[in-house]
């Protein structure tokens, strides 16, 4: 088992390097000279030459990549062209907002998805199941950003339950901070809730039909015990993988939701950088979020072994 964990962790390295290369290469997809584009019309020839030199854009591609990845490996993502601050520091300041948002969204979605998915499977082909299917199909179809706008409209502007503008961080004032986070997290989490709930339902349905569950019933266990003790653990494996993959959707969705609710997280930082043509920041944000996503999936894969004893981990 330990060996599997070690191997799985080791396997992530080539992927990390390839992802880093793709992010590095992004800047070379800019039509024209990146330094020119970044400085816009205001930059003089000297400014452009200086930027090109400081970003190493005047060197051959492979040298640039090696230099860049060496810096990234030491946690240095360069400086922002706009405010000249180190990007890794700005990311460190903003990431807690995005992490709180995605974590809350995940908690909310699991709380909704797991019980309802199991319930729908237990009551398969009854009205409860049909209602569940209808609700979840709308859940995966409503665009998150529109749901957010509607939530703002109803709960913040009309009912006044949640603040509509401004932001208080959760570290400053926990309860006040939470009020700013609830609506965005629910909005972000509902899509994932629907996806995970459908997955939970179908993997539960598969397990319920298996012989060992019938056996557990035949032993005279109560239905509740059969579901909770025997079926649930085995149905959780595939659902867990979905949860890992869905975390990527949450990170991507956070970019949109932070824009809707004006939350000062990584997504907002990325969007401002895009419109300011601050490409080092764009690179830094995308790289950081992708690595976070890869690490989450690594953890999920390792947890998977615990839930599915059949998987090989030699």
């Amino acid at each position, binding site marked *: 088992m330990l060996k599997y964990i070690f191997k799985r962790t080791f396997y992530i390295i080539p992927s990390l390097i390839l992802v880093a290369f793709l992010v590095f290469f992004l800047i070379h997809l800019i039509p024209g000279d990146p330094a020119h584009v970044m400085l816009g019309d205001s930059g003089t020839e000297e400014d452009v030459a200086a930027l090109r030199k400081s970003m190493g854009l005047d060197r051959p591609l492979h040298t640039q990549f090696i230099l860049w990845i060496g810096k990234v490996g030491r946690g240095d993502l360069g400086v922002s062209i706009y405010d000249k601050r180190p990007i890794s520091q700005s990311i460190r300041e903003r990431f807690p907002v995005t992490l709180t948002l995605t974590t809350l969204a995940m908690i909310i979605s699991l709380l909704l998805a797991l019980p309802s998915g199991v319930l729908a499977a237990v009551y398969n082909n009854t009205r409860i199941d049909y209602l569940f299917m209808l609700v979840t*199909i709308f859940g995966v*179809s*409503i*665009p998150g950003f529109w749901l957010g706008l509607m939530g703002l409209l109803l709960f913040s502007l009309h009912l006044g339950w949640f603040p509509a503008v401004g932001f208080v961080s959760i570290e400053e004032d926990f309860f006040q901070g939470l009020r700013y986070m609830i609506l965005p997290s629910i909005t972000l989490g509902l899509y994932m809730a629907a996806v995970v709930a459908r997955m939970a339902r179908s993997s539960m349905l598969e397990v319920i039909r298996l012989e060992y569950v019938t056996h557990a019933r035949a032993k005279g266990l109560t239905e509740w015990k059969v579901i909770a003790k025997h079926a649930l653990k085995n149905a959780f494996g595939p659902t867990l993988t979905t949860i890992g993959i869905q975390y990527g959707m949450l990170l991507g969705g956070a970019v949109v939701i932070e824009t809707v609710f004006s939350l000062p997280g990584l997504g907002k930082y990325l969007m401002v950088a895009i419109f300011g043509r601050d490409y080092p920041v*764009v690179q830094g944000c995308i790289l950081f979020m*992708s690595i976070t996503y890869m690490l989450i999936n690594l953890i999920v894969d390792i947890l998977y072994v615990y839930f599915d004893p059949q998987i090989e981990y030699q």
Partner: protein
Amino acid sequence: MAWKRFMEHRIGMIGLTVILFNLFLAFAAPWIATQDPLKIEPKNIASPPSKANFFGTDGLGRDIFSRVIYGSRISLIVSLLSVLAAMVPGVILGSMAGYFGRWVDIIIMRFMDAVMSFPAILLAIGIIAVRGGSLYNVVIALSVVYTPVFYRITRGSVLSLKEKAFVEAAMASGNTPSTIIARHILPNCMAPIIVQITVSLAYAIIAEASLSFLGLGAPPPAPSWGNILSDARDFMMDAPWMTVFPGIAITLSVVGFNMFGDALRDVLDPRLK
């Protein structure tokens, strides 16, 4: 056979009806729209729904009903093109990797894994960030994001079909790999690919709307659903109708594809149910 089972699938038929309705709106937009979706009317700014403007007007006095109707064109064209542009390379690379295995598989797989290591919409945002916001770039970005999905499905199906007797027979009779893949293997793995197409279309509609909403899609005057919603943000308090209708349009068209996709999965691939 499959078609008959599909006809009996109520959810699937609802989905199909919604899709056909959506296609009809897109084709017949010039006849259905009551006004020019780009026409600015300074005297008629942010007016509520009425007989003249079914969905009201926006901040520039443009008719939201007509903009929403024309928006279905952008939404459908972008999603169809990007799914097509993802499916073709995905299926080709997937069948090559599945059929030849070994180093072909390893090289392609590594690359696809790397693309899949990015949160999907984030990669699309990154590509558009450097290439600039336009419908063409949205199609490129979304096709890059969705290619690995088709690749994985095809590769998996090809791997399992390769061991089947009829494929071995085709190999033994001296057919070239491309003939075997095109004639014998691909026709047998169409079911999961077709299901994936409908599901991807649903995703692509949401993705296109989200990108336009962020200002990374079709440039402003274009009546895309995301753009209409992005314009509506400044008028949320006074003119909520601007926000309500385009969102309903997006949701309905996505629901259509999702219902259709679910039904196709039930009918074509009962194992996945």
